[in-house]
């Protein structure tokens, strides 16, 4: 018995060791990014773990550095925050509304809409890029915040997730609330939303992350420097600023950190939500 006990202990330690090694490998690129953003410029991309550190890259990023060009990094950051938060809020709001109708309101045409949403969701979106760009241009929204927000205000996946979740909520809750004289808006707001906190964390994080890191669409619908999102700005600086790798890493940290912080804040709810999501 003693032998088998120490055997399982050994096995477990090996398991932990492998898991830790794997995790370090997976997270290393992030660590490499952060270290390089803080490294002395003579060491950027020259050492796995830099030894001399400086804040010069961040300083450069915010002032424009020796090139004398003041690049709108801070402005781009705020554009990203503004556009992502509003788009995500709209996506969430519409997804919840539409999903409530599809899951809990019995109305004529519901099944057709449901099927259409599924068809739309699995339709290759690539075909729509050119005409959607043209719509934005024709109605005069090219190079505005509207162009970044409106076409990205609806998430089919969000509708799909909430519809499935709401379907699992027993009708008895809703009927009881109706007997008490609650309106559908009130039911949605006071009953359905509090019940779906963990699924909301999952949907919110996935949608925000996707919006935050969108490249193709944001790249084609805005042109002027003041309109660029951080992801697009970083992408544009990619080639010409190869001579300044340090600041590029600092920009990458600026783009990555907010989403990771949010993810860690919502970590617990996210896990609960994933459990439901995967069942």
């Amino acid at each position, binding site marked *: 018995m003693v032998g088998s006990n120490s055997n399982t202990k050994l096995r477990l330690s090996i398991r932990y060791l492998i898991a830790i090694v794997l995790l370090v490998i997976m997270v290393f*690129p992030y660590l490499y990014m952060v270290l390089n953003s803080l490294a002395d410029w003579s060491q950027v*991309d020259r050492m796995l773990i830099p030894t001399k550190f400086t804040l010069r890259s961040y300083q450069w990023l915010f002032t424009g550095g020796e090139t004398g060009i003041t690049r709108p990094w801070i402005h781009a950051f705020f554009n990203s925050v503004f556009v992502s938060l509003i788009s995500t809020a709209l996506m969430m709001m519409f997804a919840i509304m539409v999903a409530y109708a599809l899951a809990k309101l019995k109305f004529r045409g519901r099944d057709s809409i449901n099927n259409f949403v599924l068809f739309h969701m699995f339709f290759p979106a690539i075909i729509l890029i050119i005409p959607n760009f043209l719509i934005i241009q024709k109605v005069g929204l090219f190079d505005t915040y509207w162009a970044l927000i409106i076409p990205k205000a609806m998430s089919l996946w969000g509708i799909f997730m909430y519809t499935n979740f709401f379907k699992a909520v027993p009708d008895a809750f809703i009927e009881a609330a109706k007997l008490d004289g609650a309106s559908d808006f009130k039911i949605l707001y006071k009953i359905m939303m509090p019940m779906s906190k963990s699924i909301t964390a999952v949907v919110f994080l996935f949608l925000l992350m996707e919006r935050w890191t969108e490249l193709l669409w944001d790249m084609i619908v805005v042109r002027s420097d003041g309109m660029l999102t951080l992801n697009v700005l970083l992408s544009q600086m990619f080639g010409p600023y190869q001579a300044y790798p340090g600041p590029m890493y600092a920009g990458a940290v600026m783009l990555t950190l907010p989403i990771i912080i949010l993810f860690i804040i919502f970590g617990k709810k996210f896990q609960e939500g994933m459990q439901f999501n*995967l069942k």
Partner: protein
Amino acid sequence: MDKNNNRLGWLFASPYLIFSTVFFLGPLIWSLYLSFTNWDLISPTYDFVGFKNFTKALGTPGVRSAFWVTYKFMIVFVPIVTAMSLFVAVIVKGLPKLKSVFLIGFFLPYLSSGVVASLIVKGFLSHTSPVQTFLRERLGLDIDWLGGSFSALFVVAMIMAWKFTGYYALILTSGLESIDQEVYEAAAIDGVKDSQKFWKITLPLLYPAIYTTLILSFGATFGIFTEVYQLTGGGPNYATNTWQMEIYSQAFKNLQAGYASAIAIMAAVATFVSIFVIRKILEMWGKRNGWV
């Protein structure tokens, strides 16, 4: 189905209905129409050219490569990401403590932007980087990672694998957890060896979760854009030229809107048919083994 519910249902669903009319159905018809014209995205007039765009597209190296590159990505990316996520899931599942900390940690790469991932990889593989210096000075290998057709494809596939492994591992872990431990005990009594446990019990019972990750990973290969745009621009010599890359270049660089629309339609058809076939094959594979 009272009248009130009818009105309310349509009211609640109306944001979607309006949106899908403006940004899905309308554009779909417009795209079909454009694909038969020679419009250049700028001039006010354009001509109807019939199927000319489609026949022209079939002969160009850009479109041919876009078609094949997707499947080449699949061949490299899908096995790697599946093996990696399965390995992570199996390792993490048996941990009594800190399991969720590990899973969250593995999930982090999924949150990174393709631009950031490309930036890191570019720095990592640059001439002066520690990795390259080591390979050159110690092993005598001077590899131009993004300059070789297979290595460029491989690098992009590895970035994708890095990004998706944690996400798929999460799906597979919850699949593993839904397997009843008693099945293993019963199998042990029936004389199933430890070495066979994975193939005879785990894999069959995990099939639904594996099916999900496979569909997701096959689907992901059709949407590759950012990493390729950032690192190789579709090169070298079209070796990493994906559908999205080709459509972007034709529409927004060469300003061939009509021609690009035709390519987009071909891409959509290729995607739709491929995913459908892949689903059927996976379902057949599961049925033949009696897993579903």
